[in-house]
């Protein structure tokens, strides 16, 4: 299943690992902050509405 990358395996694989890692981190950070702000706003609005 794994393609034969020959002598450039390190270069190709490290590019994929680094890029996917960077994309994973930014997606995770955006999702985490979005949840936190949504939760805080809901709590604050509940206080104001009460």
């Amino acid at each position, binding site marked *: 299943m794994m393609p034969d990358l020959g002598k450039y*395996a390190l270069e190709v694989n490290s590019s994929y690992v680094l890029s996917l890692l960077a994309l994973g981190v930014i997606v995770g950070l*955006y999702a985490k902050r*979005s949840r936190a702000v949504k939760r805080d706003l809901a709590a604050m609005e509940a206080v104001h509405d009460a």
Partner: protein
Amino acid sequence: MGWSGRALPWVAAAAGLSLCSGLIWGYFFTPDDIRQGSTVKIIYLHVPAALMAINGYLLMFVGALVWLIRRQHVSVLAAKAAAPVGMVMTLIALATGAIWGQPMWGTYWVWDPRLTSFLILFLFYLGYIALWAAIENEDTAADLTSVLALVGAVFAMLSRYAVLFWNQGLHQGTTVTMADGAQQDNISNVFFQPLLLSMAGFGLLFLTLLLIGTRTEVRSRRLKVLQARERME
């Protein structure tokens, strides 16, 4: 925020699907290039990331311009949300370019016009994010970062057209050129089709994060208003 909330799951699903298909197709099911060997597989990361790095900054430029002219908060908040994503795209383009450059050019880095303009673009992204973080007053921050976004847009355009302005340096010309809606002969179809899918994936991922980020910034601003109101009561 109604339409963006409804569109978000669909855009996110399309992003995940096209990104995974493009990268899996490119990595597992494309042949090696005659001259570049298996390093050609880096193209499915490098080109889409570079494309979104430039387009992301141009989007910030439009957002900044709309803010400065029309004072629409959503436009500048969208620009703010786009900046970290654009910075990551620039970082991926720089890193994969350096990794690709070593076996092909014999060096990780040269002060080539395109590489240098990309590095400057990365620094503009950093500066833009830092400026937002450094200024407490939201409207002042929006004004100053918008001016920075306008100045940095020059380098975004320079990054795009550097290989045309200066006929020097190691970086090759444009990989994908669309002329009259037709693909030119500068990349074979066997590489072009997964590349197109990967570019769509990166673009849709950018859009997904832009929607999430902008919605978060709008909510964050509302939260700050309510907190300020509570302090005054």
